[in-house]
C-alpha cells in the first residue's frame, strides 16, 4: 500500500451515520423469483428442449383440433378409395378401408399421448407415496418396502404388462394398469433417496421442532423440495409408457379396432408394408418424434431444475 501516513488521519467528520437505506445494505440480492420462474429462464436457454416442448404442444394441439375440423372420421370407411397415396384430399393418404390416415394418426395420438400421461401420473402418485413413506419412516419398514421394490424390478416390464392385459382383456384400463404397475418402482426409489437426504436437513428438523405432523413434514417440506428430480423422471416416464403401449399394439394385444393408437396403426399397416410403406412410416414417425421431443424436454428440465447448477 502506498498511502502516506498523513493521508490516513481519521477525524470524526469523516464518519457519517448510515441513512436508513444503507443500513439495509445487507440487502436483497436479486429480483423476487420463484424456483420455477428461475428454472423456466434456464430451460428456455436450452434450444433442443424448447424445440421439444414446441413440438409436443404442436402435436397435442393437432391431436385435439384436426379430428374436429377434418371432414373425415377415424372410422369412416370409403372402399372406393382404399390405400390411396398422399393427395390434397387426404394429406397422408388412406388405409386399406379408405379411412383418412391423418385423422387416424391424430385420433391415435389422443390415445397414445393420454396413455403416456396418465400412466406417468399414476406412477408418480404411487411412487411419491410409497417412496416418501419408505424414506421418511426408515429403518425396518424401509428395508421391507425397498426389498419389495427390488423384487418387482427384477421381473421384466413387459411380462407384467402382457400378463395383466391378457388376463383383463385388452382395454384402456388394463393397458394403463399394466404400464403403471411396471413403472412406479423407479419413481419410488428416487423419491425415497430424495426424502432420505432432505429429512436430515435443518429445515425439516425445524418443522419437526415446531410441532409439524409427519404428513406435513413429508409433503410440505420433503416432497416439495424433491419436485425437481421428480418432474424430470415423470417426463422420462411418458415416452417409455407411450413406447410400451405402442409395443402392445404392435404385438396385437392393444386396443381393438376400430379404435387405434399409434402402435396398433403401425401393426395394421405392417401387413401391407411391402406395397404401401408410407402407411407404416406415419405412425412410426409420430412415435419416434414424440419420444425424442419428450426426452429433450426431460434433459432440459433436468438441467433447469437442478439447483446445484446455479
Amino acid at each position, binding site marked *: 500500500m502506498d498511502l502516506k501516513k498523513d493521508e490516513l488521519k481519521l477525524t470524526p467528520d469523516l464518519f457519517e451515520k448510515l441513512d436508513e437505506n444503507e443500513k*439495509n445494505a*445487507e*440487502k*436483497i*440480492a*436479486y429480483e*423476487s*423469483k*420463484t*424456483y420455477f420462474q428461475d428454472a423456466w429462464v434456464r430451460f428456455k436457454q436450452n434450444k433442443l428442449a424448447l424445440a421439444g416442448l414446441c413440438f409436443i404442444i404442436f402435436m397435442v394441439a393437432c391431436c385435439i383440433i384436426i379430428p374436429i375440423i377434418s371432414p373425415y372420421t377415424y372410422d369412416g370407411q370409403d372402399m372406393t378409395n382404399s390405400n390411396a397415396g398422399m393427395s390434397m384430399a387426404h394429406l397422408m393418404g388412406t388405409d386399406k378401408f379408405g379411412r383418412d390416415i391423418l385423422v387416424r394418426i391424430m385420433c391415435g395420438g389422443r390415445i397414445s399421448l393420454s396413455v403416456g400421461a396418465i400412466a406417468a401420473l399414476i406412477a408418480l402418485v404411487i411412487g411419491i407415496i410409497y417412496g416418501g413413506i419408505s424414506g421418511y419412516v426408515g429403518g425396518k419398514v424401509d428395508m421391507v418396502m425397498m426389498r419389495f421394490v427390488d423384487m418387482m424390478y427384477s421381473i421384466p416390464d413387459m411380462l407384467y404388462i402382457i400378463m395383466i392385459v391378457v388376463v383383463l382383456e385388452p382395454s384402456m384400463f388394463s393397458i394403463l394398469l399394466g404400464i403403471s404397475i411396471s413403472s412406479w418402482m423407479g419413481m419410488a426409489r428416487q423419491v425415497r433417496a430424495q426424502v432420505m437426504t432432505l429429512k436430515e*436437513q*435443518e*429445515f*425439516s*428438523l*425445524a*418443522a*419437526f*421442532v*415446531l*410441532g*409439524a*405432523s409427519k404428513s*406435513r413434514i413429508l409433503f*410440505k*417440506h420433503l416432497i*416439495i*423440495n424433491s*419436485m425437481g428430480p421428480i418432474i424430470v423422471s415423470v417426463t422420462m416416464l411418458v415416452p417409455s409408457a407411450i413406447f410400451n403401449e405402442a409395443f402392445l399394439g404392435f404385438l396385437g394385444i392393444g386396443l381393438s379396432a376400430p379404435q387405434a393408437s399409434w402402435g396398433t396403426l403401425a401393426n395394421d399397416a405392417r401387413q401391407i408394408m411391402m406395397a404401401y410403406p408410407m402407411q407404416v412410416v406415419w405412425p412410426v414417425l409420430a412415435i419416434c418424434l414424440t419420444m425424442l421431443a419428450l426426452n429433450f424436454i426431460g434433459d432440459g428440465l433436468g438441467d433447469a431444475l437442478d*439447483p446445484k447448477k446455479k
Partner: protein
Amino acid sequence: MANPILELENLKVYFNVGGGFLKKKDVVKAVDGISLKIYPGETFGLVGESGCGKSTTGRAIVKINQPTEGKILVNGEDITIIKGANLKKFKQDVQMIFQDPYASLNPRMTVGEIIKEPMDIHGIYKTNEEKEKRVRELLELVGLKPDHIRRYPHEFSGGQRQRIGIARTLALNPKFIVCDEPISALDVSIQAQVINLLEKIQAEMGISYLFIAHDLSMVKHISDRIGVMYLGNLVEVGDSDELYNNPLHPYTKALLSSVPIPDPRVAKSRERIVLQGELPSPINPPSGCVFRTRCPKAMEKCSQCKPELKKVKDRMVACFLYDGDKE
C-alpha cells in the same frame, strides 16, 4: 431460586453406527451422563470442541434425538414420555435456532409462509389477516422489513436468514430456545448484530436460552452461566465471568489459553497450554477421567475412576485435582 425451566438428569444419548451382516455395531457415546439446570430468563452457554456432543444435547432437548438414558424435565415434566396436549404445549414452549441459516429455511416457501407455519400448526390465530399482521410484527421485531413477507429465503443474506429463523421460533412465544451455534456460520460483522437481537428478545420476552458454541469468548458475552463439555461429559459449570477469569478444570484452562486476550497483564499471568494428542473417539472413550489422555496434570487415579461433577468453591468441577478443597 425459582424452579428450573429445564433440568437434565444424567442424560445419555448413544448412537449405533456401522455394523451390518455379521458385524458388530459400534456405539457412539455422544452424550454420556450430563446433569444441569437452567432457570427462567437465564442464558446457559455450552462450549466444547467439535464433536463433544453439544448439538446432540440440544437436539435431545427438542426431541430430535432420543435419550438412551436419563431424564429431560421441562417445567418439571419428563418430556421423553410426554404425549397429546402436553406434547403440543411443549412444542410451543421449547424451540430451536439452527446453525446453518442456508439449510434451516425451506427454499420453496416464502418468508411469510415460513413464519406462518408454526401458527398454522398450532392454530394460534383464526384468520389469515391476524396471522399476516403477526408475521409483519415479528419481521419488524427481528429487524427486517414487513414487506419482505412475499420473498423467498434465497434472496436474503445469511444474517437476514438467521433473523427469519428467529422470527419463526418467536411466532409461538416460546419460553426456552436452544440456540445451536446460531452465529458460527455468519460473517463476524453480522455475528454481533444477531447476538444483540437475541439479547433484546430475551430482555423483552424473558426467554431462557441454551446457547451452544465452540468459542468461549462469544459465549461469555451472552451467557449467565457456562458449562464446558468434553467428550460427552460436563467437566466444569460456573458463573460465566468467574469461569472465564479463573478456570479450574485443566480442560477449561486449555480452552481459554487459546483465546487471545486483549489485556496484556491478564495475558501474562496466564500460561499457554497446548493440548497434546488427538481428541479420543466417542466410540471408545478413555477409562476414568475422559480428559486424562490429554491432561497435563493427569495422575494415576485419573485412569481408575471417573471424577464426578462436584461443587468446588463457587462452581462445579469434575476433576480429582480439586478433591481436597471442597467448601
